[in-house]
């Protein structure tokens, strides 16, 4: 009898686990569909705040183009507009799935785009607390690289959310041991994420606020995000405006010649 009970228990827990995994996968799939883009442009104002309270504030225009949906690769063009000492500087990143990314920096003093060494996954993106890996994951959740598990529901900042544990698969070469994502049930947007480093210590907290529809579309986007590094005590706050999504961005702008000319 005991053996039968054990078998029933094992089967039911395995079924529950499978259901939770499937649910988690479906939630993440919905989140990925809700957040993925073919192209995007917006204006950004961000603040890097050091642990000593010193602030670096910058404004820029960002242009993003999905190069290859199946490989989760993007082209990024960032054009800084303020403050004056950095105004006119542009950065172009062409991501590749099979080799290192190509990156150029246009500096007004040089009046030419200079190729710079490709950033690694764990490098800070433009000096912020967000790494290139974080940015890629935020633009499109890399479902083929992670295992997902639903850990219940929680309310975050008034939003009822699914709490999902994302564990990287061995081939993913992630800088994190795991991530915990909170996906808003109503909008399928990520409202919070915890990043644990390889030592399983909570390293960063990501939070997204002011989630609303983009004008004239059914696409939701966070207009404010905050990334706090608990180990270094630095944080980055990003404010988004003027989103234009999937309106057919000219792909010729993702070229060295473009950043040298316009």
């Amino acid at each position, binding site marked *: 009898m005991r053996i039968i009970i054990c078998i029933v228990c094992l089967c039911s827990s395995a079924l529950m686990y499978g259901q939770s995994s499937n649910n988690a996968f479906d939630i993440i799939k919905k989140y990925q569909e809700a957040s993925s883009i073919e192209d995007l442009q917006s204006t950004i104002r961000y603040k*890097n705040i*050091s642990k*000593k309270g*010193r*602030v*670096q*504030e910058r404004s820029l*225009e960002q*242009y993003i183009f999905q190069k290859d949906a199946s490989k989760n690769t993007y082209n990024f063009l960032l054009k800084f*507009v*303020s*403050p*004056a*000492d950095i*105004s006119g500087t542009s950065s172009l990143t062409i991501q590749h799935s099979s*080799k290192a990314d190509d990156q150029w920096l246009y500096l007004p*003093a*040089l*009046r*030419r785009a*200079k*190729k*710079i*060494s490709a950033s690694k996954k764990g*490098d*800070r993106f433009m*000096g*912020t*607390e967000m790494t290139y890996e974080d940015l890629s994951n935020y633009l499109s959740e890399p479902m083929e690289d992670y295992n997902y598990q639903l850990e219940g529901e929680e309310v975050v900042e008034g939003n009822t959310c699914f709490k999902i544990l994302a564990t990287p698969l061995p081939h993913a070469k992630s800088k994190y041991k795991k991530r915990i994502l909170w996906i808003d049930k109503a909008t399928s947007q990520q409202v919070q994420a915890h990043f644990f480093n390889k030592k399983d210590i909570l390293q960063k907290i990501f939070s997204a606020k002011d989630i609303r529809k983009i004008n004239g579309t059914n696409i939701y986007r966070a207009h404010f995000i905050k990334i706090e590094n608990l180990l*270094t005590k*630095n944080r980055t706050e990003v404010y988004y405006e*003027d989103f*234009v999504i999937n309106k057919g*961005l*000219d792909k*010729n*702008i993702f*070229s*060295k*010649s*473009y950043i*040298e*000319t*316009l």
Partner: protein
Amino acid sequence: MQRILFVIALLCFFVSHSLEGQNWKHYHQNEIQPTYGMYFQSIENANRTIPELSAKYEWEARYKTKFKTFASLNSVLNAHEKQRRRIWFNQAYLAFNKKKFYGKVGKQIIKWGRLTGWSNMDMANVYDYYDFLRTDNEALGVWAIDGKLSLKKWQVQFKVLPFQKSSRLYFENNRWIRLPQNFQGPNDIVFRAKLNEVNRVKPSSSASYGLSLGYENDDIEINFNGFSGVNDIPQRKSQLLAPNLATKVLPYNIELVYHRMNIATMAMTKLLGDYSLWSEVSFVNNQRMEEMGDLVPDNYWGITFGIDRLFIFESPEKQLKLLVQYLKNFTDGQIDYSVNDLDHVLDHSILLDATYQFNYTWKASMRSVLNLTNPSHMMSASLNYKLNDKFRFVCSADFLYGNDQHFFGYYNDNSRVFITMKYHL
């Protein structure tokens, strides 16, 4: 021309503002910069201080990602130098792109060199040479058509400058161009020299052209560049006029002879990990003036190589940029170039640039140029304090010393210190 530019800029400003929306974006920024400089030594007939106020208004309007107009209205008020007091449109251009073609038409700053450091092609850049060492913010706009065609790994670029635009030079009471104070006349009579007028002799063709072919594959970039145009630094000769025996004054004219110059270069850049390595081989077909006032060819080869890197630290506030460059021009060893011949100041030199950002508010930078033929040295250092995004304060100093057969040693009495405030409205 300035008035036409002003009307066009004003028109563009109102049109773009009236059309403001998702497709139009415009930005403008103002900068006011008072500077006070002081030389460590006094010299005869030249001011020891540099009190100056400069202001700049920049305006940019863009339609989608298709085209943009940009205008920069500059002004300078110098307490000592009348010629430097002026207001002008330094840039006013239209940039556009159509598929793989990218163009820029109008008054714009052209930097000819394609290296991160100094290139012999940079000899054709046009500056306001009120101060020979402080040219970073003194590049002058020139009328030009600049076109680029981008074909996967290849890039073809052409530039046409239909009119001659020369660098601005200052002849009176300037510490960098020292005119004769006296002339020895017959019977050992010493006459006081008096500049009467400066005449410019222009070449028959004043247009300049540039062509560049670039190839980029993974971490290697190769560029073939050509320039054919007018050397913005003229050769100079004096013409003595009839002396006034009563007052013992000898008036004279200066003739600035502009001549054509051709430069060809092959530049290569290679990324090696976090380091960027670059080199250039160049050939310069220039002219120089002999003692008798005749122009003769001045042809030479040049080679340079350099390395630069940006160091990033654990703290996002800290950054270090380093650049080292070696330059060697293989000139005719028999020729004695004048110490103030700007085209030959860097003939055999090592250049070092370093910038260290301590945090978001403090930054220090240093530039050092060492001449290896006639040992002499220039070192510039500056400390930058950013109070906020509107206010910045810069304290800087330039030190020149060494053999007086070279520019840096010859002008060793021009070592000085500056205090600058930058205010962005």
